[in-house]
């Protein structure tokens, strides 16, 4: 399947944030979105998710425009993985994942046995079974992020939109999440991921889109897009890109 954004203008009334952006995500690949704070990443993918109205251009799934889709149909196609946060009520991990099934229920529906089984399977996929009965408000930030990914898996959507899934996580948890991102690609999900770390794009991205001042600077293979020149220009810092070993590229900033 193909999620296609073409010539999109996104933003708020009288204040466009993103201008004329086009890209596509295909099932089984991860498109990483990089750009400085305020470059429009969040606005862009909130528009893709249908949480913000688009100003111009089109967003389509396999050629069908999503503008008029009801929430349920959108949610059956696109799942959102927000940054881990704490809700005001102490739901269990199991309940949080089960909430993904809302996309497949009517307004007055409640999850059936089948939905519970799907949620349990998603919990198992993310290796969270020992935590299933724990309160979501009491587990660690890294675990919460994995729970939110499990929830997106249980939503059984074709595309996952992940908002900086590794921010606020310690090094070990970042690696866990990166591994899961690769697994999700292998399972055939199409992923749209934002990050601040070029290294993570080198590790997981099929393709990279670089956003600056609300416009697409470049899009393509990570090695072609994430060059020293382009990154220095976009972020305004000096940096070096080097291959630690073949196929393992890193980006290191220079402090003076």
């Amino acid at each position: 399947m193909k999620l296609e954004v073409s010539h999109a203008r996104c933003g708020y009334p009288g204040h466009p944030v993103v201008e004329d952006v086009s890209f596509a995500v295909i099932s089984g690949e991860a498109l990483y979105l990089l750009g400085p704070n305020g470059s429009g990443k969040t606005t862009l993918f909130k528009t893709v998710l249908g949480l913000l109205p688009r100003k111009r251009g089109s967003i389509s799934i396999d050629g069908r425009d999503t503008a008029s889709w009801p929430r349920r149909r959108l949610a059956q196609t696109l799942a959102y993985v927000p940054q881990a946060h704490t809700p005001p009520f102490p739901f269990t991990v199991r309940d949080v994942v089960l909430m993904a099934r809302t996309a497949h229920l009517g307004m007055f529906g409640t999850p059936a046995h089948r939905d519970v089984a799907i949620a349990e399977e998603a919990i198992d996929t993310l290796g969270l079974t020992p935590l299933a009965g724990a309160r979501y408000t009491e587990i660690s930030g890294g675990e919460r992020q994995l729970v939110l990914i499990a929830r997106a898996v249980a939503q059984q959507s074709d595309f996952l939109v992940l908002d900086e899934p590794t921010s606020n996580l310690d090094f070990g948890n970042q690696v866990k999440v990166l591994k899961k991102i690769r697994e999700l690609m292998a399972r055939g999900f199409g992923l749209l991921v934002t990050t601040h770390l070029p290294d993570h794009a080198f590790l997981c991205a099929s393709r990279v889109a670089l956003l600056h001042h609300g416009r697409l600077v470049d899009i393509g293979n990570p090695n072609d897009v994430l060059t020293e020149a382009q990154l220095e220009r976009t972020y305004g810092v000096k940096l070096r890109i080097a291959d630690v070993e073949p196929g393992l590229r890193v980006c290191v900033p220079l402090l003076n």
Partner: protein
Amino acid sequence: MTTAAHTVAAARSRHTAALVALGVLFVVIAWGSATLGRYDVPLATWWKLILAPDEAGIPGQILLQVRLPRIAAGILIGAGLSAAGAAYQGIFRNPMVSPDILGGSAGAGFGAAAAILYGLNVVGIQVMSFVFGLLAVLLTCAAAARLKRMGDPILTLVLVGILVGSVFTALVSLAKYAADPYSKLPAITLWLMGSLSAINPKDLGFALLPMALGLVPLYLLRWNLNVLAFGEEEARALGAETGRLRWIVICCATLLTAASVAIAGMVGWVGLVIPHLARMIVGPDYRVLLPASILLGASYLLLTDDLARSVMANEIPLGIITALIGAPFFLYLMMRSQRGWV
């Protein structure tokens, strides 16, 4: 997978057990309340009442005309206010929210005060109270909808609700100030304190329809209420039509609040305390929390009303009892809860 299935089943049976226990508690309290009273009704009269209502005599009439309507009203009001409070805490994502947050109770209070001021009869008071309760919330929602550009729709609603509520509270004061201090002022004051002492079968008929119209949709929406706890954007991304959902919940909760104020006056704290207590017992999942709140709320209101009619020779207004018990009890819950707003 088998262990997972096992724990799922365990969690579910724990919920069922809690609901059954609350149900039994409710039945016991309801039965106790029905037998409690100055007029002792022997068990034989109950049988007669069921088998041949015409031959039950005066004790039967007392049960049918006074005690049973009062108990039924207590159940409806306790259940309605608690369900409204639980649902509001979900849509406003805040456990400190009570059903009067959008100004409904203040509006209903003003309607009643105005009706008493103009010398309307009981039906007039109830209708005015109900209508002004709805009107106040409608005003809040209309104003909030016009303020859409302010951003967070929930915060806007709460702020406007506080404003509308305080306007109607001021209008209540105005009505009191204008009222005849020897006849109407005490009537308004007493009415605002809340009481079930004057409930008759007709009042019950008045409240039954709005209560049912409020409770049934809320119960049907119990799963979607869970999703709202994650906030507007996430709930929408999960497939919930948050806007429509919020309006339905507000309509239902307003019907429940306005109907209960209309027949019983201001009965405070129930809608805030009971959902908390229920959440401590069964957890935050609305599939269990909502029925648990309904059962607990009905039991709690019956108990407080039992106190209201038996502690002193004269009846104590119910609103005073619910506040006297509710506020300290809430403090106790806050101190006991080690995990924040459980």
